[in-house]
């Protein structure tokens, strides 16, 4: 896996990606307002595939302003953990993800043992989830970000948690 900038990701960056299940996606609206939301993703080749389509706020923002800032890490009670910050051009794509990315999404978020357990615990809500997705079926899609900068953010553990500083910029 490379950073998309032609440089391999640092070992710590790979570790963050392995432990990171939702990426914080920052975008700018057509009215130049900031927007941030956590979304499932897979890193596939030199691109990050994000599981939201053109009807979401993030999708609409990317259509208006094709650039995204992504932050990985810090989940599961690790507020002071290091982060990986990625920026790059983003595009909103209609339809299904390419098979390679789609398989990764399925394996990671739906078929992994803990994912199956999560769904078993919410069996009665799965039909509601299907209806939620069905409402978006006519405009199904995803977002692709091609990283142009990749930064590791340091963390200082302490009472105030994160104290960020750029450790390395691979741009």
């Amino acid at each position, binding site marked *: 896996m490379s950073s998309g900038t032609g440089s391999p990701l640092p070992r710590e960056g790979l570790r963050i990606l392995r432990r990171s*299940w*939702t990426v*914080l996606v*920052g*975008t*700018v609206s057509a009215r*130049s*307002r*900031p*927007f*941030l*939301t*956590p979304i*499932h993703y897979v890193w596939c080749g030199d691109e990050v595939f994000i599981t939201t389509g053109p009807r979401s706020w993030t999708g609409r923002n990317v259509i208006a*302003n094709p*650039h*995204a*800032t*992504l*932050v990985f890490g*810090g*989940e*599961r*009670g*690790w*507020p002071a953990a290091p*982060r990986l*910050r990625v*920026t790059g051009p983003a595009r909103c794509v209609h339809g299904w993800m390419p098979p390679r990315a789609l398989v990764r999404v399925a394996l990671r*978020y*739906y078929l992994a043992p*803990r*994912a199956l357990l*999560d*769904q078993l*615990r*919410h069996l009665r*809500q799965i039909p*509601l*989830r299907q209806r*939620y997705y069905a409402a978006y079926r006519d405009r199904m899609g995803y977002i692709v970000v091609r990283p142009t900068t990749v930064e590791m*953010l340091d963390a*200082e553990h*302490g*009472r*105030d*948690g*994160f*104290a*960020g*500083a*750029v450790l390395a910029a691979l741009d």
Partner: protein
Amino acid sequence: MADLVDDAPRAHLAFVDGNRAEVVPVVTRRVGGQQLVAVPGGARGLDGREVHLVRDDGQYWFELRALAIRGVLRAIPAPHDSGREGGDPLPWFRLEPGRTVAWDYGQLREADDE
């Protein structure tokens, strides 16, 4: 969602910088009903800026929860117990909240439109 308000596993802030979104991890605290935010690693020019603050938790679909607050930052003195004695002081802000959106997919249910 109360735990996300008071003690979220992670909190991040987005703001617009040169027509692009900047995203930074932040420290949050609620004092007297006010939302305080510290921005480690520098916060030049954030006073008076519109931001989008997101606290979130969860890995798999039904675990996903988040609290997103749009608002404006106002610079304030560091709280007394900000815990940075001896270190560089963090820049602290009060978030003047605007629109707040929250979701918890584990609580997904049929909407009652009646």
